[in-house]
């Protein structure tokens, strides 16, 4: 007579389903996906697991890892940042312009030129972060609109600033040492990514700044009632995110040996995808930094593998979008299963 509710009850207590849920909700879907993707590409293409390719994948992944670190911080605080791509483009062209003109005027002081370029590039990050942060925190513009607007402003500015063509003539020290250089056989950008990861891990795990981010993202009102200056912290996280994006922009500029106004367009989508697939909640307040780093690694391995098996780039774009949506659906499910 009451068959329907009884059946539901039986289904709920299914051992296997419980176990699957327990695994998914504790470690997330990522380790499983990562294993599947690696095994698949390794079986399809023997070049995939060669040392050369693995080093290559690691170097490729550094840019996305650094951007994703910043994106993860913003997501944890309950916002998101669509302007990371524009920050990369503006950083690239502005730092390249300063570096090359300084180098042209003082060909004997390469190091000074590099430092000037890096300083200017990071300043670009600070400016973007402040504008985003003040817009979101002080004027209560939704993060979506604020950073989408700044993405358009930045992209437009990069094109206007260069007339659409790349900036060249950078000091060899920059392109050689940072772009293609290796220390102990390991490409330099990998050190940068490791340093950035450690920095963010310390910030999040061991400082009150990190603790407040989770509190603000988890419950802004509770954070405010606990005496946390919510606005200041919200603004600071956008600055941090843009700074990390600017750092990625500098590394990419060194890699391509030129200031590229078209650089970075894929990063907003890919960094959000990487963070969410790594277990950072889109609703804020939840997630681990290492998850986001693994997420970025996963996206890069996937792209690399798709290139190796010669999948058309159009399909790759489709795949990234689909993965983002799946990751968000999974994020929702995990939330529901946990209750």
């Amino acid at each position, binding site marked *: 007579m009451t068959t329907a*509710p009884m059946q539901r*009850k039986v289904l709920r207590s299914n051992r296997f389903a419980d176990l699957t849920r327990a695994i998914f909700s504790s470690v997330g879907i990522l380790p499983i996906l990562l294993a599947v993707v690696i095994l698949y590409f390794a079986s399809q293409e023997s070049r995939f697991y060669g040392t050369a390719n693995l080093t290559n994948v690691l170097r490729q992944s550094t840019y996305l890892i650094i951007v994703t670190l910043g994106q993860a911080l913003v997501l944890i605080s309950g916002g998101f940042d669509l302007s990371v791509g524009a920050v990369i483009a503006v950083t690239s062209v502005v730092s390249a312009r300063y570096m090359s003109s300084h180098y042209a005027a003082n060909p004997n002081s390469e190091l000074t030129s590099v430092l000037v370029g890096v300083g200017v590039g990071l300043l670009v990050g600070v400016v973007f972060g402040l504008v985003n942060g003040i817009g979101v925190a002080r004027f209560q513009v939704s993060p979506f609109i604020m950073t989408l607007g700044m993405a358009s402003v930045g992209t437009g500015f990069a094109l206007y600033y260069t007339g659409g063509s790349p900036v060249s003539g950078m000091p060899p020290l920059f392109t050689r040492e940072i772009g293609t250089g290796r220390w102990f056989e390991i490409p330099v950008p990998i050190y940068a990514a490791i340093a950035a990861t450690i920095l963010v891990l310390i910030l999040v795990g061991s*400082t*009150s700044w990190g603790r407040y981010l989770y509190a603000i993202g988890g419950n802004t009102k*509770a954070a405010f*009632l*606990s005496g946390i*200056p919510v606005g200041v912290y919200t603004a600071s996280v956008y600055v941090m995110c843009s700074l990390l994006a600017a750092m990625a922009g500098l590394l990419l500029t060194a890699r391509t040996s030129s200031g590229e106004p078209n650089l970075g367009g894929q990063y907003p989508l890919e960094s959000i995808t990487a963070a969410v697939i790594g277990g950072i909640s889109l609703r804020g*307040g939840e997630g681990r930094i290492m998850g986001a780093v693994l997420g970025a690694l996963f996206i890069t391995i996937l792209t690399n593998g798709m290139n190796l098996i010669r999948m058309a780039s159009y399909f790759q774009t489709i795949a990234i979008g689909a993965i983002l949506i799946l990751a968000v659906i999974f994020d929702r499910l995990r939330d529901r299963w946990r209750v």
Partner: protein
Amino acid sequence: MSKRFPGVQALRDIDFNLRSGEVHVLFGENGAGKSTLINIIAGTFPPDEGKMTLRGRPLRLHSPHHARQLGINAVFQEFSLVPTLSVQDNLYLGREHTRAGILDKAAIARGTMETLELLQFHIDPKAQAGSLSRAEQQMVEIAKAIQGKPSILILDEPTASLTENEANHLFALIRRLKEDGLGIIYITHRMQEIRRVADRVTVLRDGQLVATVAASDVTESSLVELMTGHAVDALYPSIAFQPGQVMLQTVGLTLTSGRVQDVSIDVRAGEVVGLAGLIGSGKSEIGRAVFGLESIVRGSVVIGGDVVSHPTPRGMLDRGVVYIPPDRREEGLVAMRPVRENMSLAALGLPVFSRLGFLRRRLEGQTVREIAKRLNLRPLNVEREVAYFSGGNQQKVVLGRGLARDVKVFIFDEPTTGVDVGAKVEIYGFMKELCERGAAILLISSDLPELLHLANRSYVMHRGKVRAELVGPALTEEAVLANFFDLDADAA
């Protein structure tokens, strides 16, 4: 007409039936399961076990809409009006009169007028629902429920924001509806109303049925005992008050919103001062204003002799004032973070918890564990996420946040909503301890027995102003209630 359902998660083995032509009162503390029960009856969600029958036939509700089609209409405490639509459009939302697919506005206007007339509610049918006062919105909700010609009507504390006069009209209406054969489920906390309208009373406690009794057979104190499971005396501690110097004072406090006007109160060290009043009387806003959550247009807040011109949560915490908000989930807790992080949140800037922005995690863990032990947190696991604790233990986490700092003034805003009896006793004991150690406590509460038993002095708020200050023996239920309502010449 009967309904039964043994066993729902928030409810265990509840047998409940409603006869036509009766008013059946559901009585119990917050969190006892009353809302769960009426939500099931109104089709908001299905029971996990058990069954319902309507007029002897098995009943399976798919949605609130389905329930309404079967003549089950509910008026919940949270309003379901669309604030941007007019009163009449709200009344007919989802069942508009149409002619060939076009809205028949004349019929809608006529129907609205008739219903409002029947209820003797004086509301402009064309007014925007959002522009109405809380009491008027409550009337529109009731009108909306009556509009559907229901056979079962569920009223969840319908008089909470009505004046006595309006409440009298409602009671008259309830009598008429009863004669027409409606079954009415009525939730209230007020003894007077039970005496006036109830035929039978079902008492719930912690999701379980305690008893169903005929209203004529029970006394007030036996109902309270059934509800709490304790004799009243065992529930409340007796506090040794030793009023000292004034710690918290407001002088002519007036808010920009107008919800508090010219309020002057004071709270001394070593005493519990109550703030009573109906919802919307401004009692909660006073606490919020002191903590910097409302914008003040005139008057001042004085803490320990210092005038604080622009209160902010941070500044108030630094002065040793803490505000415990009424809604834990909304304003108190970061639900997906562990207890440790929640308890230390307001105190992380202190040297005990961090140095130069770097956390001292071992000290943090130790301090929080001590507080959790003192509050008898169950289970005593500070690394567990707050969301997994019961309501009472969640409330202890919010209280614990105040203990992580050196706090001299506690503002409790509805501290025991949705808290089970056991935790309630512990929270009261905790307030006693704080008070006897010399803290100043401002207790804002809609739970009258709580206020009467804990406070040694109480202000009664009415429409944004202090209506009365009752001290010691003068602090009685009658005296407080007399100041709750508008004085109506034609009160029955």
